[in-house]
């Protein structure tokens, strides 16, 4: 049979690792090409957004959150990563249609490399969080060293969602239009700029089924409050990210056979 059936996912990942690197490097290069500040934007952008939003939300709608700027930038950085990576992944297969039609490449490379390049961009934004931490005089203790864990779970989750979106959008381009509205609703259902305590108990219950809520909570616990999150948060993050990733791979592998007829 063809190469695709012969070698497993892991083997393909190994063989095409250079391609993954090149694609991520290209995304980063193209993203800031011809701007004066370049990568600095990945740091400046979240800081500026945070400034605007913390003014808006501390004068127009008040929330009772200690160290609101840090609370906001934590949620916002993670949310921006989710939003950007899944959106870019969604277009990745269709956008590379001309390549898929001519050369054999394992197609999951495209959504995955997109998510990874957003992940690298988020890495720059972490510096912005660090700056805010220092400025607001947050007490930093050892639990901060856990910060890669929620980010890793979130990465898996985004890859899963990105794989599903990229495969579905090959068959139904409508998803590209629908997804913008969906992510907006999803953002309001995620405590990015408000505390979950501000919600009525029954609404908060519903929101506790939102995986994004748990990744952000995990991250805030260690960065903002300097504590290690409880078991429930760990379980939610681990299970939801692994399920999303496996589901993404399964759906993608099922649908990819006929990509070429549709891209």
């Amino acid at each position, binding site marked *: 049979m063809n190469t695709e059936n012969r070698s497993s996912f892991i083997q393909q990942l190994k063989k095409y690792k250079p391609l993954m690197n090149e694609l991520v490097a290209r995304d980063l290069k193209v993203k800031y090409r011809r701007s004066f500040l370049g990568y600095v934007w990945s740091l400046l952008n979240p800081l500026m957004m945070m400034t605007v939003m913390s003014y808006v939300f501390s004068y127009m709608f008040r929330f009772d959150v200690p160290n609101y700027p840090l609370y906001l930038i934590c949620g916002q950085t993670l949310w921006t990563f989710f939003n950007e990576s899944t959106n870019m992944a969604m277009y990745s297969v269709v956008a590379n249609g001309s390549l898929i039609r001519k*050369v054999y490449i394992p197609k999951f490379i495209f959504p995955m490399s997109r998510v990874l390049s957003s992940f690298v961009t988020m890495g720059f934004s972490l510096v912005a969080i660090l700056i805010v931490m220092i400025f607001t005089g947050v007490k930093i203790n050892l639990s901060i060293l856990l910060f890669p864990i929620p980010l890793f779970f979130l990465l898996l989750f985004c890859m899963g969602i990105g794989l599903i979106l990229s495969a579905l959008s090959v068959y139904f381009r409508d998803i590209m239009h629908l997804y913008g509205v969906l992510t907006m609703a999803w953002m309001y259902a995620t405590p990015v700029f408000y505390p979950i305590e501000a919600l009525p108990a029954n609404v908060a219950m519903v929101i506790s089924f939102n995986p994004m809520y748990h990744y952000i909570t995990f991250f805030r616990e260690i960065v903002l409050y300097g504590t290690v999150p409880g078991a429930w948060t760990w379980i939610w993050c681990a299970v939801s990210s692994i399920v999303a990733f496996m589901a993404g791979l399964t759906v993608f592998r099922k649908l990819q056979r006929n990509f070429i007829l549709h891209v």
Partner: protein
Amino acid sequence: MNTENIIEVKNVTMRFNLAEEKTDTIKEYILKLLRGKLHFNEFFALKDVSFNVKRGEAVALIGVNGSGKSTMLKIIAGVMYPTKGSVNVKGSIAPLIELGAGFDMDLTARENIYLNGAVLGYDRDFMNQHFDEIMEFSELWDFVDVPVKNFSSGMIARLGFAIATIVKADILVVDEILAVGDFRFQQKCKERMAKLMSNGTTLLFVSHSAEQVKELCEKSAWIDHGELKAFGKTEEVYRMYEEKYN
């Protein structure tokens, strides 16, 4: 002479569903489903094609436009899956289906060499070793840091060919690429291909130039409207082919 089959094509049928291809939105899909029009317009690009290629052979696929030659190449290269039947390939393939297919027009020649190499599965170190050789062959040293979008089609083809043939792949799949580039470059490509073949690379070749086919390939497969009409010595296959069309 080795008698091992490097490519085995078994009863390959490729069906395109022309109506289905145009369904891009859910609304259209449902409408067509309701009208029962979803599976209309079947088109068979290949019908029950079987042949084997032995290691080291040079085989041409000939036939008129739209007869299914490129579809056959794409199935062998693993780009498409056959609707029925199977293709068994033993070894690595260097696809020269469309030169410069993997180029990003915004990146420079230098950056594209690494990108395109990665598309073919080679890492940075490997490409570093062969970088000079690629630039030498494509004769593009003056433009190494110019974005590829400013290149002429001939320059893109030169770069693409140089990258794709840098490694000794087991099988070279060539689709009509010698039509681009000037005479001198065509000559250079042919020399490079001949050199690869003398080292045991198998060649699959699509061309409308009888001259090139006769020069490069001892065997030919004639595909007509998706059916394999003849497979054998190039001269004999060409005689039958020319009989039909002259």
